[in-house]
């Protein structure tokens, strides 16, 4: 069983708002001195693939589109337990939209050859459009399961568990498939140990360019983009917290209740 996981490396989303900066011209977050990480749901997708590998004999390949720095995300993926990784990197990939990204990933999957399934996180932790997974499924004409939290092979098919309001669904499809992964109790992503990452750093990671993938720049550049960010801004927050004062806890509690009632919120 060969599962390919598509990862995106992003700037640590947990940085506090006061150090969060954007470049309004490039319409991107400013990297600054922030740490780069595997986007949350993508790490969870990798976790789901690794859990499957532990149950059945299999191989997990992690791929990412990014600059040279994205190799760190692949070191982490190897340390978590991925068997192989590929960095897909070319300056012309930088201005591409979600359609272009799906196009690039489809070419990479084609080059990888045989696989039984592709996993993508439900959305990236930066722009959060959540489009690449479903686009990729359509482009490759793969059955598409979305927002699943884990999977299990069943009679040559794959069964997915999908959390829904107040319960869950079991969905089934043939292989190869594409699934987008969401989180639940069962798939908290494992840590990559420092030792594991150090070991992974000695692994040669293949880098595929647009030429390696026989991609036509006209098909993936910004000129053909159908989705564009026109403006990026940090909303003004003219806000001051109104603190409830009081001598004791119970007094503050009572005042809070009265304040909320006066505001007709209770």
């Amino acid at each position, binding site marked *: 069983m060969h599962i390919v996981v598509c990862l995106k490396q992003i700037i640590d*989303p*947990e940085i*506090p708002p006061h150090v*969060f900066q954007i470049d309004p011209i490039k319409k991107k977050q400013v990297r600054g001195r922030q740490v780069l990480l595997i986007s949350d749901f993508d790490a969870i997708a990798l976790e789901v693939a690794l859990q499957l590998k532990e149950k059945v004999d299999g191989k997990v390949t992690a791929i990412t589109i990014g600059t040279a720095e994205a190799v760190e995300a692949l070191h982490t993926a190897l340390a978590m337990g991925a068997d192989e990784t590929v960095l897909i990197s070319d300056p012309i990939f930088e201005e591409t939209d979600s359609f272009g990204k799906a196009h690039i990933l489809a070419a990479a999957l084609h080059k990888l050859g045989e696989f039984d399934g592709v996993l993508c996180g439900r959305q990236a932790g930066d722009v959060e459009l959540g489009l690449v997974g479903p686009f990729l499924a359509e482009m490759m004409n793969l059955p598409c399961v979305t927002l699943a939290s884990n999977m299990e092979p069943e009679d040559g098919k794959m069964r997915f568990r999908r959390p829904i*309001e107040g319960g869950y669904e079991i*969905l089934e499809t043939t292989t190869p498939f594409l699934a987008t992964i969401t989180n639940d109790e069962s798939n908290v992503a494992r840590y990559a140990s420092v030792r594991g990452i150090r070991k992974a750093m000695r692994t040669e990671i293949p880098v595929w360019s647009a030429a390696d993938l026989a991609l036509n720049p006209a098909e993936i550049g910004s000129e053909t983009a159908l989705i*564009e960010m*026109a403006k990026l801004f940090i909303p003004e927050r003219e806000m001051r917290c109104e603190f409830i004062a009081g001598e004791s*806890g119970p007094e503050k*509690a009572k005042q809070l209740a009265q304040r909320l009632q006066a505001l007709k919120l209770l």
Partner: protein
Amino acid sequence: MTNILTFCTATAQELPRASLEVLAAGRQLENKLGNGNIQAVLLGPDVDGHARSLMQHGADEVFVASHPRLQDYEADVILGTLEKVVPQLKPDVVLFPHDALSGGNVAPRLAYRLGTGIVTDCVGFEIEGDTIRWLRPVYGGKAMAYMVASGPVQLATIRSRAFEPLPPDPSRQGAVHTLEIDVDSISSPVSLVERTQKEMEGISLDQAQIIVSGGRGMEDKEGFSVLEHLAQVLGAAVGGSRPAADLGWVPHSQLVGQTGKIVAPNLYIAVAISGAPQHMAGAGSSKTIVAINKDEDAPIFKVAHIGVVDEWQNIIPAFTAACEEMLDN
């Protein structure tokens, strides 16, 4: 004329609020563009009873496709149906609720099949010339972006609670049409084996007007039972931050944040929650945020409207009692 198609989900019994919110978004877009027509599309067996209500809430025309296969809202069947509906109705804009069915699956795949642009999770829009610029949060709500979709038709998914349903106007009337769609010919490579749904105990996070949420500072599961009592008194739902969910104090289904539910109640009471970006991505759009935290420097006080600095143990039981007394009178 601008045709705006809104995709409305419904069961025989229920027309969800999200369907009315999307209609309200459509109406607002029509007001800005002028000279538009709102086509509400309703799929499923026995849902035509909602047509009148959709009209009163802003639709100009209602189109119903009724077929037993539409009953379970399986993504592939809905997608295949809409793929046939769109060329028939020729809309300029298609609006969906940003939910698991549409936002995560049907809308992006339909955009791909139509070869057209899409913007997901929108909370507003502005018109510049004849371009619609869709407003959506990015970077976990730390920034906002205006995005533009190009192509033959624009698709957008609308974040829950971003638009208030319009009050029903009984004078609004319009035509109800039946869509002739060959649903039987739609293939579904993904099959639904089982769907298990329990009646929710209490109020769901999506529906709640008030949410009481706890964080790591609640210390244990016992702490959450104190919050549950408060929630009961207020008729509120209980939520939790990621550490609280990862520690098993609240189920993952109640997790509020970037990796959980995005909520926007009238009142959000954050108890012993530091206000990490991951959490605020889910709770930041609440109309009023009340924070109770012992640490006066906690980031939550930067986003809260009302704050109380104290141990939650000193506040919540007394606050619950005060509310109980108030609501009894």
